[in-house]
């Protein structure tokens, strides 16, 4: 019964929170409307979620978020420095193949987003069977190092979160 009303409890909470953020004021009326949205939307969109992502360790999510946030700030400064102070012929761009150990689509999506937002890399494409991800690196002299950093810094943590 509870599973019928809340097919996706996390999504319900998120929708209610986003609604309260949008109206920018917590009143009983807004809470009620947000709650209704949180119930109706997951039920209507349930067919599009055939498999639910399971979050194993919620605390790790916060840790991951803080690390990514910090890396985004560093990435911005690094890319700005490259744009401003490097001559075009000194910018060595590389394609890098990162083999993936993640299998869940949600985890791969988060990893691809993280790669795009962080130091000098954009995720470009997945292999047809989802076994590796193609990354474009703006400037590096050590492509293998970048690959290892992505695997050790982000993929390892995501595996802990989504297992």
């Amino acid at each position, binding site marked *: 019964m509870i599973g019928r009303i809340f097919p996706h409890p996390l999504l319900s909470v998120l929708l209610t929170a*986003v609604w*309260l*953020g*949008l109206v*920018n004021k917590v009143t009983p009326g807004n809470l009620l409307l947000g709650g209704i949205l949180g119930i109706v939307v997951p039920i209507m969109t349930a067919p599009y979620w055939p498999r639910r992502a399971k979050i194993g360790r919620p605390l790790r999510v916060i840790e991951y978020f803080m690390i990514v946030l910090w890396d*985004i*700030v560093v*990435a*911005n*400064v690094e*890319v*700005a420095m490259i*744009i*401003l102070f490097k001559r*075009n012929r000194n*910018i060595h*761009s590389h*394609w*890098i*193949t990162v*083999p993936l150990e993640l299998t869940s689509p949600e985890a791969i999506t988060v990893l*691809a*987003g993280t*790669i*795009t*937002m962080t130091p*000098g890399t*954009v*995720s*470009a*494409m*997945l*292999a*047809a*069977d*989802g*076994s*590796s991800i*193609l990354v*474009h690196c*703006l400037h590096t002299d050590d492509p293998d190092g970048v690959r290892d950093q992505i695997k050790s810094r982000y993929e390892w943590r995501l595996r802990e979160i989504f297992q």
Partner: protein
Amino acid sequence: MDLVSELLISFFLVVAGIFGLVGSFGMIKLRDTMQRLHAPTKATTLGVGGVLIGSMLYFLLVKGMFSFHELLITLFLFLTAPITANFIAKTFMQANLHQSDLPGTESEYGWSIYQDPPERSEED
């Protein structure tokens, strides 16, 4: 509005402006599409982020209330920016690159825009 909060808010606005400018400059300066893609996805994130932090501080310090809108804008930005970049990259590769220009995939299947995915089994 006291001087300290004014200075703090101005600082974030100026930093945001600088990063926005550098990001736009990168679009002109860098050589090819894939390199240009790096400028708007990164340098500009901090540009927008700075404005949002400035706005939050303004509401918090001057108006004395907490504003959630900036947090939501940040959330939506983080969700949409990588997807846009990914679509631009894919379109560019589809039109301009061949499989031989890219490194291999380390598995028997090629990259997804050149090759169909393997058949999925029933339970997927």
